[in-house]
């Protein structure tokens, strides 16, 4: 045991002497990750403290699990967790469905010109910030002058105000999420499709397979691995909402929070009010643990059943 340790140490030392420059090249990234990722992990101790700005992280008093007790007793935690998870699962499934469908359709398009043109259109939303998307939301769905309301009124209908009725929002959020990321996401699948051996399709054609059969039995199975990897990557963040989108589209509009409030908004509000920093950080720890457990369990199961599909 001890000699094994010594041997390992000697090996590490030899490696260090030989690859000094490689270690040097690793310094910037290592330092960055240490400071901005690992130190905040240590900073999670404030979830167990009554944080006080003057005293700092170390000077603040320990309060045990009090922050967690407040968090769990606030009655909101289950609601927020459910919202966060359901929104993410909806984004993943609908997003993936559209991305894969569009990738398959774009691949079959004959006209190169059309393909290029419309593909660039589909990318465009990926390039803008959620601030601009929020402006677009008002242009399309705004109450007084929005495109949709103008159209509805011209058709003889009633104008509706999305900013005061919570029921429209799950739909709107999914719509804008899909709008922004489908063009970008479909490229990844398109790349996989282009990599499929063309002989498979030719052989299937000779055997009389039609386009639906080729899609179902050749294209789709070839995409499964990419789909599972994308799904797992998204699942690792399943309890972390897209703060940028929710914050910019909803902001502080309390009237629609009953259908749109997520953990990330809750944490931000607690941080901004500065009174609940301990609880905000307890919620952050709760969120991180949920994500970590989810990805470890799911990846573990996949590794047991289908090893080549696992993430790590």
């Amino acid at each position, binding site marked *: 045991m001890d000699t094994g340790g010594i041997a390992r140490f000697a*090996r590490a030392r030899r490696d260090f002497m030989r690859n000094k420059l*490689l270690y040097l090249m690793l310094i910037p990234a290592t330092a960055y990750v240490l400071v901005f990722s690992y130190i905040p992990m*240590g900073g999670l101790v404030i979830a167990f403290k009554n944080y006080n700005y003057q005293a700092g992280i170390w000077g603040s008093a320990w309060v045990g699990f009090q922050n967690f007790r407040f968090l769990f007793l606030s009655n909101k935690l289950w609601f927020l967790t459910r919202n966060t998870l359901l929104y993410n699962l909806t984004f993943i499934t609908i997003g993936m469905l559209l991305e894969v469908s569009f990738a398959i359709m774009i691949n079959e398009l004959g006209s190169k010109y059309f393909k290029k043109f419309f593909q660039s259109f589909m*990318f465009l939303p990926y390039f803008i910030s959620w*601030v601009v998307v929020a402006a677009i939301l008002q242009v399309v769905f705004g109450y*007084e*002058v929005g495109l949709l309301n103008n159209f509805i009124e011209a058709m003889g209908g009633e104008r509706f105000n999305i900013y005061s009725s919570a029921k429209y929002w799950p739909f709107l959020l999914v719509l804008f999420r899909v709008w922004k990321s489908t063009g970008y996401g479909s490229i990844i699948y398109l790349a996989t499709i282009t990599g499929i051996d063309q002989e498979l399709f030719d052989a299937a054609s000779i055997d009389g397979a039609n386009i*639906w059969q080729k899609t179902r039995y050749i294209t789709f199975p070839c995409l499964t691995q990419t789909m599972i990897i994308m799904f797992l990557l998204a699942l690792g963040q399943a309890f972390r909402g897209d703060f940028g989108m929710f914050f910019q589209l909803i902001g502080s509009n309390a009237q629609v929070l009953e259908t749109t409030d997520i953990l990330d908004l809750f944490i931000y509000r607690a941080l901004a009010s500065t009174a609940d920093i301990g609880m905000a950080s307890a919620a952050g*720890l709760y969120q*991180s643990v949920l994500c970590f457990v989810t990805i470890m369990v799911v990846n573990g199961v996949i590794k047991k059943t289908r090893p080549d599909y696992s993430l790590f």
Partner: protein
Amino acid sequence: MSEWTVKTKRGIAQRDKIAFNAMGYMLVAIFGLMCVMPFYVILVASFTSEGSLMRNGYSLFITEFSVEAYKLAVRSPIRIFWAYRNTICVTVIGTSISVLISTMTGYVLQRKDFGARNVFSFFFFFTTLFNGGLVPWYILCVRYLGFKNNYLALLMPLMFSVWNMIIAKSYMTSIPFEITESAKVDGANDVRVFFQLILPLCKPLIATLGLFAALAYWNDWFNSMLFITKEEKMSLQYFLQQMINSMQALRQMVSMGANISITGTLPLETMKMAMTVVATGPIVLLYPFVQKYFVKGLTIGAVKG
């Protein structure tokens, strides 16, 4: 199978192909137009007079041409200049550093002769599985690193991403190790091998990572919101958000009947659109030029890390 059945089967396959393509053209066209339409409407609205916009609402055509909104939007050009200056500087500096660190780290981590490869890979990868969350990170930045109203607050948080490093690593795995090996036999050291031999082979990778980083910097408002209170240090997107919010508040006051004589004449709605055009324009204009690399680069990203 008789010749006849083969022919019919081919005929059916052909017909299905046409149906499939018709559907494909239609859906792609609809979705593509949905993606580009809002940009067009915003552009049109920014050149429409406020009165006409308020009467007729947003539309696909300019009903009453006016550049009033732009005139007002650039009436205090110094504020827009600050926002532009900050965002451009941070984007250029941040993107260069980000690309350099990601590629350098990725290169080292895929070197087969580097003994601590797995230890360091795990060290980086673990941060994608677990993190401390917003609060400790925020306290670290404000209380211990002094990010409040500091340009570092716009630069540092987006400077390194483990995902970009993983993309770099998987791309470089496809470069033959013999290049490194033979160069080292000839007496070149690791730093020289990386800069003079490996980096020139990574142009698509550099373009991709550069684009990812540039987009992240250009579209950043979050760090300004958290750390910046002085207007001359805000990023462009956050400045835009502030403008839109204040105009929204003004309009609400107008519709509630407050002081109509002053604010009622301001082209608030069209000015909002003009500001959006000003803040989004450069990145959209840049788009056709980088698109080629973008597609190629995403293909790189698709290769699993």
